[in-house]
């Protein structure tokens, strides 16, 4: 046993040294609170408890979340252990299967939430949360977190995807005006192209999620051409993925994105968008190498530091127009909280997150949009956030959720993204749509 013993000895020595070295020191436990705890009295006290949260958001977004609920945590005594992971989609399944589900997860895709709800893993919301949900969000929004009539979560974040970013100065210089109908949009596109500037820039590189910006484009156009009913049927597979009306929408998108005359401004031929990360894709708007960039409200955070956003500043945004000036189709996305545990402290935290108080507090900290009816647009950190909230609260808005987030995962985050990439790379519309249709799970 000489070899083994020596190895074991080495291990033990190492472990003991390491243990001894780690002299206990206060690892930055929260500073003594000075917060006013009155608003949190309704959540009761849960001293010594812990709630684990698992989500996709990291870095600054995560910091802002933690800052927002710091007072809640101090006042209720709940230790909120937040963890952000870029691999959320794949890891959440593994964690749940592996028996290490978080108490609370922030689901960026209702389809994913539904999967866990159907598998009986999620806990239905408490009566308190249900009441808040009913009061705070439209039936549409609550519907995304409802499975077979049971509500499993509440919307946390909302974003408006149908935005077109542009440079007001560039538009002025070129004599372009913000389009109010699809026809006008194409006129602006053509006018910019005629002036020697490629009108559109796009980037679809996003590691395993590469392709998603294209799927947003297609959904946006389908929603505009065919209206909400056809869109809903398509998302729920009541009509096939390769329905002629979908093909038509794809071809319309193709006439812009797959057209070397119209794209990819500032980067090169249309195909270059496959290598351009979505984060950097809008930058040519600033330099005047590209007139328009269609990307969600959260793109506000991705402009280079120092970029001013506003109607008379460096960049601003308009809603991707509908067929006519009166229609207001809005494609959006969102994040939903749902619980894998129903301990009182988890309930309390979920309830807090479902309150308009949380949304308003979070908005004051930095860029954030909530679809909660109780949020005050005045709290918005940026003009785009304010615009988004106004759109979401406007009764004339026809809001629809990002279809790929609602489809079964093997399509929504699988073949649809991959198909979109192939399509940008030159594959035919029919061929790609057929192949995605075939991949739809049969059950």
């Amino acid at each position, binding site marked *: *046993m000489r070899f*083994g013993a020596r190895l*074991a000895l080495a*291990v*033990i020595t190492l*472990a003991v040294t*390491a*243990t001894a*070295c*780690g*002299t*206990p*020191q206060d*690892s*930055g436990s929260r500073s003594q609170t000075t917060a006013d705890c009155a608003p949190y009295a309704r959540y009761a006290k849960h001293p010594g408890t812990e709630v684990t949260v698992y989500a996709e958001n990291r870095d600054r977004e995560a910091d802002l979340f933690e800052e927002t609920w710091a007072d809640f945590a101090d006042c209720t005594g709940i230790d909120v252990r937040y963890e952000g992971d870029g691999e959320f*989609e*794949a890891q959440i*399944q*593994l964690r749940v299967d592996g028996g290490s589900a978080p108490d609370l997860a922030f689901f960026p895709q209702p389809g994913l939430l539904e*999967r866990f709800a159907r*598998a009986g893993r999620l806990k239905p919301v408490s009566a308190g949360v249900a009441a808040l949900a009913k009061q705070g969000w439209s039936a549409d929004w609550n519907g995304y977190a409802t499975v077979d009539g049971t509500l499993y979560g509440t919307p946390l974040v909302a974003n408006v995807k149908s935005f077109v970013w542009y440079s007001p100065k560039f538009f002025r210089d070129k004599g372009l005006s913000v389009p109010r109908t699809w026809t006008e949009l194409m006129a602006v596109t053509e006018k910019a192209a005629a002036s020697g500037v490629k009108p559109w820039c796009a980037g679809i590189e996003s*590691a*395993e*999620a*590469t*392709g998603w910006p294209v799927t947003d484009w297609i959904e946006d156009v389908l929603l505009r051409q065919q209206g909400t009913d056809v869109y809903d049927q398509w998302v729920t597979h009541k009509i096939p993925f390769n329905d002629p009306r979908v093909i038509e929408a794809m071809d319309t998108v193709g006439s812009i994105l797959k057209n070397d005359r119209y794209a990819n401004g*500032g*980067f*090169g031929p249309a*195909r*270059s968008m*496959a*290598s*351009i990360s979505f984060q950097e894709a809008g930058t040519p708007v600033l330099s005047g190498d590209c007139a328009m960039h269609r990307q969600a409200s959260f793109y506000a955070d991705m402009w280079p530091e120092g970029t001013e956003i506003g109607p008379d500043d460096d960049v601003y945004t308009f809603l991707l127009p509908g067929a006519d000036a009166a229609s207001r189709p809005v494609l959006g996305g969102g994040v939903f909280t749902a619980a894998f545990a129903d301990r009182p402290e988890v309930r309390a935290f979920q309830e807090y997150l479902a309150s308009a108080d949380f949304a308003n507090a979070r908005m004051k900290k930095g860029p954030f949009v909530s679809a909660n009816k109780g949020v005050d647009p005045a709290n918005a950190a940026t003009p785009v956030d304010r615009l988004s909230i106004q759109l979401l609260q406007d009764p004339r808005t026809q809001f629809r959720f990002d279809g790929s987030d609602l489809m*079964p*995962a*093997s399509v929504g*985050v*699988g*073949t649809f*993204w*991959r198909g979109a*990439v*192939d399509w940008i*790379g030159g594959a035919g519309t029919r061929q790609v749509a057929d*192949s995605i249709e*075939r*991949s739809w*799970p*049969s*059950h």
Partner: protein
Amino acid sequence: MSFDAVAQQPKLLYLLQGVAAFAAVVSLILLALHRGPVRRRAAALLLLAPALLLLTVGILLPGLRTLALSFTDSGGDTWAGFDNYVWMFTDHGALVALRNTLAWVVLVPPASTVVGLLYAAAVARSRFRTFALSLLLTPMAISFVGAGVVWKFVYAYRPTGAGQIGLLNQLVVAFGGEPRQWLVDSPSNVLFLIVAMVWTQAGFAAVLLAGAIRGVPAELTEAARLDGASSGQIFLRITLPSIRPTLLVVLLAQAIGTFKAFDIVKTVTGGQFDTGVIAHEMYDQAFRYGETGRGAALAVLLFLLVTPFVAHQVRARRRAG
């Protein structure tokens, strides 16, 4: 908010407990063996029991269960017949993965073996042998994930006119070409991933083959040299035939490793741009998409594909030994 040493203590404690528990089990077995003349069968059972138990619980039963799961639907509960196998041979993504896997297995082992052989032949009898072989082995220490990062960087694309940060595009631009999206353009992007794999494997081949070349009896080569054979002839007629068993082992080992390669694809392209391979597609289906049945069917396919290679390998190694 930096490194939290206190938070590491439970882990190290657990490590300690784990090793201690294991040591206890081992000591018990040894103690029992020392106790008087244990019967042959009992002794064998005592020594084999832990391994057999683990193999049964950890490989045999799970393997059978995966086989069963491959005939069920996404949730893994409802019988689905051969649906998953039909899907596998009709779905675009799965077919592409199958095609790519075959390309990998056909190209990686010969390519890395040839590189390894040339290198081994040059350095086998040199003074700097150990150092030279280490150079080629470094990629192995860097891990597949690290290798993925390395090559992703080599293939990085910046549009024309912008400063290139990827080495390959810089070379292309330096010679007056247009930068290309190496990882995007299918199907050549599969080749670029294969290059990364070869890069990680050649060192392994070189070390083994250098060892084999050194094992060729000097009398044989000397005798041939005295007969007037050139070094090229000696290599082809004497060295190569003598190291044939090793060559076979190297080729087979790399084929087996290549079938299971997952990390490089995951790190470099995430299976996008039609670069998926079976091992990666299996992970996506089973874990990202929650399609347990399809994932299981792909695992079974992998098992069937790799079986003849492993069987051959076991035989080749026994012969070589």
